[in-house]
């Protein structure tokens, strides 16, 4: 199951009426949206959407029937169990990290217009606040940092200083190589927001 499907399933299962609907589906041989809606005193559209979502997720099956009126669908359970399985390792950016990325030379961009907040112990940056837009449309975006990210940014070269590569900054910041993905991630984000510049 991919993440989008899992999110949709999670969303459906979290509905107040989901349990009652599944109880009906488990009890009836097949049921239409109108029957279920009248039985649970819900709006037919609400039930119709839920059943369609379940059908798209391959949890229900359906059949179009004609009984002298407009055709409609009857639904029944296709499976007796729902298993949600998501492979979280696919989210890791580790595979993208290679020597070329670590050799990327960076420094803080001039007049970036951001605020770096230091931790209470003052040995790492705890958050970066970025202001975007102009006038009334000006918005504030605050990014809270993990400790390795904060240590890394604490050692980021100043706007006038020589560029340093990520590996060298990590050495200065004494961050572990296991933190490379999250550091690359924050470098990407801050580059996108114009806080960090590269050679």
């Amino acid at each position, binding site marked *: 199951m991919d993440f989008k499907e899992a999110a949709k399933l999670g969303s459906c299962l979290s509905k107040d009426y989901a349990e009652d609907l599944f109880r009906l589906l488990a009890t009836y041989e097949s049921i239409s949206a109108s029957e279920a809606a009248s039985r649970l005193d819900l709006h037919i559209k609400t039930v119709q959407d839920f059943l369609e979502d379940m059908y798209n997720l391959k949890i229900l099956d359906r059949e179009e029937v004609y009984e002298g009126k407009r055709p409609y669908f009857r639904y029944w359970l296709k499976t007796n169990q729902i298993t949600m399985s998501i492979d979280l390792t696919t989210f890791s950016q580790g595979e993208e990290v290679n020597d070329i990325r670590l050799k990327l030379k960076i420094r*803080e961009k*001039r*007049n*970036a217009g951001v*605020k*770096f907040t*230091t931790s209470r*112990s*003052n*040995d790492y*940056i705890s958050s970066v606040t970025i202001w975007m837009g102009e006038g009334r449309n000006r918005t504030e975006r605050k990014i809270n940092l993990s400790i390795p990210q904060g240590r890394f*940014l*604490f*050692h*980021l*070269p*100043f*706007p*006038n*200083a020589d560029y340093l590569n990520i590996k060298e900054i990590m050495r*200065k910041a004494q961050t572990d190589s296991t933190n490379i993905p999250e550091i690359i991630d924050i470098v990407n984000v801050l580059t996108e927001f114009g806080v960090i510049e590269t050679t």
Partner: protein
Amino acid sequence: MYFARKLKQDFSITGFIPAIICLSIGALIWIFIDHKAGLLAVSVFFGLYAGFSIWIFIRTRNISYLTASLWQLLFGLYLATRPGYLLIPVFNSKITALITLFLLASTVWLFFLVFTRRAKWKGREIFELASMSIEPQPDGFTERPHPSGRSEYTRNDLIGFAEFLRKHLVAMPYFEENRVVFVPVKMEDEFGYLFNPEKFRQNRSWIAFDFQGNVTVNISRIDYLDYKEELSFDQLCDNLGKLFIEFLKYYRKGEADRIVNKLNKLGLGLTY
């Protein structure tokens, strides 16, 4: 020692404000009431001023404030007891003579301390020294602290160093759980520091030594704007850190006087 000054000129008279207030109020009382009341008012104000100087001495342990306090007290007593204008009955006229003698002696001592720059808050010297070899380079300012490297010292070294810098008005220490933060105070800023040290440090530059040997520098916007030109910011931070690391080395070698000599050699004004 000649060098191109990087800081803007400052002709602040902050340090003289209490004395000017004392004398102005005394003069007004002299004009609108009579001269005896005027002298008595100045005498009382100088007595209070002496108390204020003692309070600064307790905060800084700087000997010049103790001397100033003594001088202000003696000056107040002198006004109150001088021959012909006796405001307080003095049974023995020798006491008046003695007060005059002590006043003259303390004046000499006070002038000595002022001219040897022992009474000077040396923040300007610190910033001048840190910027001496730095070239202008615009758009470098950032509010991030700058890690300035490591140094070797013990906790006791650091505490002793902090006391030394405070006593000589080089930088005021703030003792925290895991580090000591030094805030250089310029001549016109001393009352800001004295009356509310916590608020004062919020937007000032600082140099922090933690107990693991890490040195961190932060130059505030206020202090950076005090330079005539936009200097290379990373070099400025680096130099400020190195300067304090060097000072700490002098202190550890028992050559702490070199710190004060180095600052005094710049020859900045006595009152700014």
